[in-house]
């Protein structure tokens, strides 16, 4: 699945603020831990987020991402560690004194107030004048294209409209930081895809820093400048969507983002930037490009994305980076075809081929003997 291609490309801004040593982060999370009873929801997490980023916390449900977000909003207090927002320590500041606003997963619209009153609520708490409130509410309604619905109540709106009211309400106070808890989770698939781009456009237009919690890896890939993958309260990897996809740091990340084939093995040798790994299970030697030196004998895993391999019915000449098997399942999806190739030890390998031409000259069929090959730079070595 070519998810990485959907990752955002931004030309206008300083794309990689996190790589600039002089940049001052807008959010600093230092060693934050939060336990509920004996269960660690967030376990010594440290993280820096920069002005203008669209940062995603990605993970399966129960990984601690929502708790982390709620601590940024002030709805939970960390057991230890610090949260600094815009240079000020916010660890023990209550939510109503933070320059941060949140868009809730359930939208949390006030059912007894109109759209207008919902959007004005935060401004009223600041003590803004009537004229100011009116102007800002008008601006927000235009931003989310809800002007005709100003006098409606939440229950008179569709799901998509409610979502936009929630967004307008949380942006009305010009927050330094907007927190989004599964902002698209309650929308159906079609609307979700459309809203992804709308949300990104609004973020670029305003330049506000967004931190989003999501369990949907495609959503995170499409919208974010950077992603933090979380599991069991810890951050496993932080990086741009393409880094996370192409260079996953752990087996969990590799497996969670997109599809992957994992082979366990041991390092045999290293030469010319290539690591040679022997996988006993499938009886093959693999050569993979790897930056860091590895000692021979180290147990590692080799991760191979389905679209980074080719299938052929002609036996290749080399012995390295070759797996022999028989075609077990074929799924034709139109743009691509997916093959499951069974290796002699019954392991199924997932391979994806793009259907470039309308008629493939030699279509592979079930039970046919095939060979899988790949280039050394298309695999990733993961230390286990």
């Amino acid at each position, binding site marked *: 699945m070519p998810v990485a291609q959907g990752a955002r490309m931004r030309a206008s801004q300083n794309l990689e603020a996190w790589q600039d040593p002089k940049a001052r982060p807008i959010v600093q999370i230092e060693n934050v831990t939060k336990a509920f009873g004996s269960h660690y929801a967030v376990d010594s997490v440290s993280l820096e987020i920069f002005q203008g980023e669209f940062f995603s916390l990605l993970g399966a449900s129960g990984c601690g991402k929502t708790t982390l977000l709620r601590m940024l*909003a*002030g*709805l939970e207090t960390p057991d230890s560690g610090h949260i600094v927002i815009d240079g000020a320590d916010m660890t023990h500041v*209550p*939510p*109503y*004194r*933070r320059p*941060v*606003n*949140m868009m*809730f*997963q*359930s939208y*949390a*619209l*006030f*059912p*007894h107030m109109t759209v207008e009153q919902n959007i004005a*609520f*935060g401004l009223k*708490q*600041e003590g803004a004048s009537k004229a100011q409130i009116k102007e800002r509410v008008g601006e927000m309604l235009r931003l989310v294209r809800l002007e005709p619905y100003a006098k*409606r109540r939440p*229950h*008179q709106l569709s799901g998509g409209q409610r979502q936009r009211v929630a967004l307008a*309400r*949380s942006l009305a*106070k010009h927050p330094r930081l907007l927190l989004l808890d599964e902002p698209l989770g309650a929308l159906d698939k079609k609307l979700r895809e459309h809203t992804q781009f709308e949300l990104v456009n609004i973020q670029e237009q305003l330049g506000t820093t967004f931190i989003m919690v999501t369990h949907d890896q495609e959503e995170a890939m499409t919208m974010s400048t950077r992603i933090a993958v979380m599991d069991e309260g810890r951050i496993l990897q932080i990086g741009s969507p393409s880094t996370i996809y192409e260079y996953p740091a752990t087996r969990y990340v590799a497996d969670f983002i997109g599809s992957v084939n994992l082979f366990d093995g041991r390092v045999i040798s290293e030469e010319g930037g290539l690591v040679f790994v022997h996988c006993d299970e499938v009886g093959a030697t693999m050569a993979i490009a790897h930056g860091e030196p590895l000692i021979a004998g180290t147990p590692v895993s080799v991760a191979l994305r389905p679209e980074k391999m080719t299938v052929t019915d002609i036996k290749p000449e080399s012995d390295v980076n070759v797996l022999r098997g028989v075609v077990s399942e074929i799924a034709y999806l139109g743009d691509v075809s997916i093959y499951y190739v069974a290796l002699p030890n019954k392991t199924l390998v997932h391979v994806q081929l793009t259907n470039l031409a309308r008629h493939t000259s030699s279509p592979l069929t079930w039970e046919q003997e095939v060979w899988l090959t790949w280039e050394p730079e298309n695999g990733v070595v993961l230390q286990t």
Partner: protein
Amino acid sequence: MRHWRPFLLFTVLAFGYAFLYLPIMSLIVYSFNESRLVTVWAGFSTKWYGELVHNDQILSAAGLSLQIAVINATGAVILGTLAGLVLARFGRFRGRTAFTTLITAPLVMPEVIIGLSLLLMFVAMENVIGWPGTRGMTTIVIAHLTFSTAYVTVVIQSRLSQMDVSIEEAALDLGAKPAKVFFVITVPVIAPALVAGWLLAFTLSLDDLVVASFVSGPGASTLPMVVYSSVRLGVSPQINALATIIVGIVTVAILVAGYLMHRQEKQRLKMQ
């Protein structure tokens, strides 16, 4: 057996509702009886209503009962909302079990025990601190508050736990302080439960004979106490007339409430 099942269910319901409503119907019918003998029909008359309207004892007792019921209902909604908040929002804490027990025990406690124990405490308090002095409206209100708070708490707690907590969190997030969140967000959202709780406490207070008999002093008689002393002497057409008025008021109130709810629902559906 498929086809006689609906018939069987219908019969059960008809019998059940007849059991519930025939006694009330008989009260109403015989309130218009000419004869003093409640069970012998002697022609239509409204004379018992006339006598009821001039029965000062019943009227002043009704006045006292209404006052007590209003004060009690208002107080019980305040106490019950606080207790409901503690149970629905404050999570687990040390003493929660004691709190829950104290809140729910009055629901199942026999009235005679509540009444006796409160009276004995009032007497003991009077010996120690000289309060409450004469027993009457104050002591009845305190006693009624004690058991109706339990009922109101249950109503409000269940509404609070159904409510989406993130609405309150959103208000905090947008800069409202906790007390303001409670009055501007929570109270309007749970308003129907507050009204229901108020009505429940009002009825409980208006209906109570046993507890009031214990904690009341000489000279302070509530409506149930007057009705009881009259009923002990046998059936009385005036009581039938009173019953008819009460049933009439309750029916009208429920029909109006039902109509309002129905209209609101229809409006809601139309707008969607």
